[in-house]
C-alpha cells in the first residue's frame, strides 16, 4: 500500500516526502487521510483564497490494485462556503498519483508568479506558467501542456480555466478534459495560489502479500462489474438516465424550481441524447464501465456555408438538470453549447446553473434590472445564457462580481433569498424528491447529494419520521466515508460491499472485519464533522429556502415543520457525535 505523502510548498518552491504508515493504517486513505492532513497542515481559520489554504489530494489502498477504485479525494477550505471543501474526481488522477508512488499530496503556500507543477515519481518540477496564465479555455490549456510534457497514457493533467484564475468561487479543476473536481471551488483555490495546472506521472509498483488471493479477488470484482446488473445504469445511458424518471416523479427542478416537471424533459433525456448526440464513450483509468458519455455537437461557421466545428461534450445528469431544466432549456444543442461554455471556463455546472436560474427569476421579479444582468435573462434563452456565462468569468460589473461568489452571497446583497437554492452555501443538485434529499444537502458534510443520498431514501421510503430520516442519512454518510477513503467510485457501491472490501484487503496484508469497517466509517465521519465545526460550521445556522416548500415533489408539498423537527434533531445529534 502507498503510504508516502508528498508535501509541496509554493512559497519557496520546495518539497519533501514523508512516510506516513501511521496515517494510512488508521485512516485508510482518501477522505480519512485527507481530513487528518488538513488538520495537520492548515489553520481552520485560514482565508480560503490566501496562501494559508492547503490542498490535499488523497487516494486509497485499492488504487490501482483493483478496478473501479479510480477516484481521488481533494480536500481544502472552500472559498464558496468558507467551510470544508471536499470534491472527488475520476479520470487518471488516482492511478497517476498511486503510480508516482504517493498515497497523498499536500500543496501549501502560494506562488508569486503563475506556475504549473509536474510531479514525476520522487521529483517535483516547478514550471514557469506565465505564458499559459490568462488562457481562459481549460481545453486549450490541456492541449498546450500535453504537447510539452511527456507521460502520454500514464499522466494526469489537472488544470484550471479562466474561472479559476478570476477566482469565481465555484470554479472547478478539470482533469483529462472531461472529469472534474467540480464542487466547492477548488479551481479558485488553484487560482489564488497562481497554480495553473498539476501534472503527475509515474511508473511504480508494489506487490500483494498473497498473490493467488489477490488475483482471485481481482477477477471477482472484474466479473461482477462487467457481468452483473450492479453497474448497468451507468453502463448504458449513464447518469442521464435519471431525467425521465425524476421528471415523472415531480422531482426534476425546473426554471429555478418554480416547477418540478419540465415539459421538454424528453428532448434532453438520456434516451434522446444517446439516440441523437452520443458520439463516444470513454473510461476513467482502470474502470471497465466507461460511463463518460461524450456528445457530438456540430456547429456551422457563422459566415461560411459548409464549414463545421465538431465538438465533443461530456454530459451527465447534473449538467442536464442545472443547465437544462433549471434554465428552461429544452433544446439538446442549446444545452450542449451551455455545457461546453461552462467546461471551457472551468466552472462548476451545478453552481453556474443555479446562479443563473436565480438571476433570471430575480430579473423577472424586478429585484435586479438589466442594468445589472446586462442581458435579458429569460428561461430557455440559450444565447443570453451563453453571454451571462461569459460575464460570470469576466465579471464586468458589480452584479456579476457578486454572482461569481455564489447564489447565497448574491441573494444576500440583492434579496430573493427565498428562491436562492443553496444549502450550506452550496448550490443545490438536481433532486426535488422530498424531505430527505434537502436534509441530505443541508446536513451532508460537503453539502452534496452524494454525501448521504437523500434522493434515494425519498424514493425508497413512503413514511418516515424526521428523526428516522436524519438517523438514516447519517448512517449512510458514515458508510460512504469508507467508500471515499478506499477511494472507490460511488457508482460501484453495489459491488464494494463490506464483505468484499474486507476480503479485498486481505491479499494486500490488511485484516479488517466488516464490523471494524463500519466503526471506522463512523470515526472518519466524526473527525470530518469536528474539522468542519473548527472551520466555523454551526448546524443551528442551516437554512432552507422557502421555494422548496412551494412546489409539489414526489412526496407532495413539503412540510416546514418536518424540516424544523429534523434540523433540531440533527443539531442534537451533532452535539452527541462530537461530544
Amino acid at each position, binding site marked *: 500500500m502507498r503510504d508516502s505523502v508528498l508535501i509541496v510548498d509554493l512559497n519557496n518552491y520546495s518539497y519533501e516526502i514523508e512516510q506516513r504508515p501511521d496515517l494510512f493504517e488508521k485512516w485508510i486513505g482518501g477522505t480519512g487521510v485527507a481530513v487528518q492532513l488538513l488538520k495537520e497542515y492548515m489553520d481552520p481559520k485560514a482565508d480560503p483564497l490566501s496562501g494559508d489554504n492547503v490542498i490535499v489530494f488523497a487516494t486509497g489502498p485499492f488504487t*490501482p*490494485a483493483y*478496478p473501479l477504485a479510480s477516484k481521488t479525494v481533494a480536500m481544502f477550505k472552500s472559498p464558496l462556503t468558507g467551510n470544508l471543501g471536499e470534491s472527488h474526481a475520476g479520470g487518471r488522477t488516482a*492511478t497517476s498519483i*498511486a*503510480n508516482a508512488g504517493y498515497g497523498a499530496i499536500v500543496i501549501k503556500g502560494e506562488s508569486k508568479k503563475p506556475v504549473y507543477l509536474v510531479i514525476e515519481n520522487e521529483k517535483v518540477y516547478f514550471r514557469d506558467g506565465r505564458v499559459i496564465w490568462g488562457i481562459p479555455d481549460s*481545453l486549450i490549456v*490541456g*492541449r498546450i501542456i*500535453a504537447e510539452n510534457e511527456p507521460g*502520454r*497514457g*500514464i499522466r494526469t493533467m489537472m488544470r484550471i480555466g479562466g474561472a479559476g484564475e478570476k477566482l469565481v468561487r465555484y470554479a472547478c479543476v478539470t482533469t*483529462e*478534459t*472531461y472529469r472534474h473536481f467540480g464542487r466547492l471551488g477548488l479551481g479558485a483555490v488553484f487560482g489564488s495560489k497562481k497554480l495553473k495546472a498539476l501534472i503527475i506521472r509515474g*511508473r*511504480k*509498483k*508494489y*506487490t*500483494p502479500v498473497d*498473490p*493467488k488471493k*489477490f*488475483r482471485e479477488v*481481482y477477477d471477482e470484482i*472484474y466479473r461482477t462489474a*462487467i457481468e452483473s446488473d450492479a453497474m448497468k445504469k451507468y453502463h448504458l445511458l449513464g447518469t442521464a438516465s435519471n431525467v425521465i424518471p425524476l421528471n415523472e416523479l415531480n422531482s426534476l427542478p425546473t426554471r429555478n424550481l418554480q416547477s418540478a416537471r419540465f415539459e421538454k424533459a424528453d428532448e434532453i433525456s438520456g434516451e434522446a441524447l444517446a439516440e441523437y448526440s452520443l458520439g*463516444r*464513450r*470513454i*473510461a*476513467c*483509468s*482502470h*474502470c*471497465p464501465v*466507461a460511463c*463518460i458519455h*461524450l456528445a457530438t455537437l456540430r456547429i456551422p461557421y457563422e459566415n461560411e456555408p459548409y464549414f463545421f466545428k465538431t*465538438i*465533443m461534450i461530456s454530459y451527465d445528469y447534473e449538467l442536464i438538470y442545472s443547465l437544462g431544466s433549471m434554465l428552461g432549456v429544452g433544446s439538446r444543442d442549446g444545452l450542449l453549447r451551455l455545457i461546453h461554455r461552462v467546461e471551457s471556463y472551468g466552472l462548476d455546472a451545478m453552481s453556474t446553473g443555479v446562479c443563473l436560474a436565480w438571476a433570471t427569476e430575480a430579473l423577472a421579479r424586478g429585484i435586479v434590472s438589466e442594468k445589472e444582468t446586462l442581458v435579458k435573462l429569460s428561461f430557455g434563452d440559450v444565447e443570453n445564457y451563453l453571454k451571462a456565462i461569459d460575464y460570470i468569468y469576466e465579471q464586468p460589473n458589480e452584479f456579476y462580481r457578486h454572482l461569481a461568489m455564489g447564489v447565497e452571497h448574491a441573494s444576500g446583497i440583492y434579496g430573493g433569498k427565498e428562491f436562492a437554492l443553496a444549502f450550506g452555501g452550496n448550490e443545490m443538485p438536481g433532486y426535488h424528491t422530498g424531505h430527505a434529499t434537502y436534509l441530505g444537502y443541508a446536513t451532508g458534510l460537503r453539502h452534496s447529494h452524494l454525501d448521504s443520498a437523500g434522493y434515494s431514501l425519498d424514493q425508497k421510503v413512503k413514511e418516515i419520521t424526521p428523526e428516522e430520516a436524519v438517523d438514516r442519512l447519517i448512517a449512510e454518510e458514515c458508510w460512504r466515508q469508507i467508500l471515499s477513503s478506499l477511494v472507490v467510485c460511488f457508482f460501484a457501491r453495489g459491488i464494494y460491499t463490506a464483505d468484499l472490501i474486507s476480503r479485498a484487503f486481505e491479499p494486500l496484508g490488511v485484516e479488517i472485519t466488516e464490523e471494524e469497517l463500519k466503526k471506522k466509517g463512523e470515526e472518519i465521519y466524526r473527525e470530518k464533522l469536528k474539522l468542519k465545526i473548527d472551520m466555523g460550521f454551526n448546524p443551528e445556522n442551516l437554512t432552507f429556502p422557502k421555494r422548496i416548500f412551494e412546489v409539489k415533489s414526489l412526496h407532495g408539498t413539503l412540510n416546514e415543520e418536518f424540516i424544523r423537527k429534523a434540523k433540531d434533531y440533527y443539531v442534537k445529534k451533532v452535539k452527541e457525535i462530537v461530544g
Partner: protein
Amino acid sequence: MKQLVVKDIEKCVGCGLCMYACSRKSAKTPEIGNSKSGILAVSLSGFERGATVIFCRACKEPPCAQVCPTGALKPKKGGGVVYIENLCLGCKYCMDACTLNAIFEREDGKIAVCIHCGYCASYCPHGVLAYEEVKA
C-alpha cells in the same frame, strides 16, 4: 502460433485495464501498478478524439533486438522478441529503436515489452484486444 492482436482499435475507451493486467500476469509475482506493463492505453491528443493501445506488433525483423548490445532482446520465431531480463543493462537503445514506442521503462530502469502471452486480452471489456492464432 498465438499472438495478441487488435480486433477493432476504434472501440478502445482508454480504460487501461490491459496495462494493469500486464502487471498482474505473473501468477507467482503479480505486481500492482504499471512498472512492468508492456502495453499502454493513450488518448489520441485528448480524449475527444478517442483512445488507442500501444504494444509490440511482433515484427519479423525487430529493430529493438538488432540494437540490443547484450542479447537481452532476441527475435522470437514467428515475430516479436524474447526478453532475457538478467542480460539487460537498461541502456534503452531498444526504446529509441522501436518505431511504435512500444517498449517502456520500468521502475528499476530495465524495460517492459509485450511478450504476447495474451493475459491482457481476457481483461479487455470492449473487444479491442484478442489472443489468436496468426499465420507465421
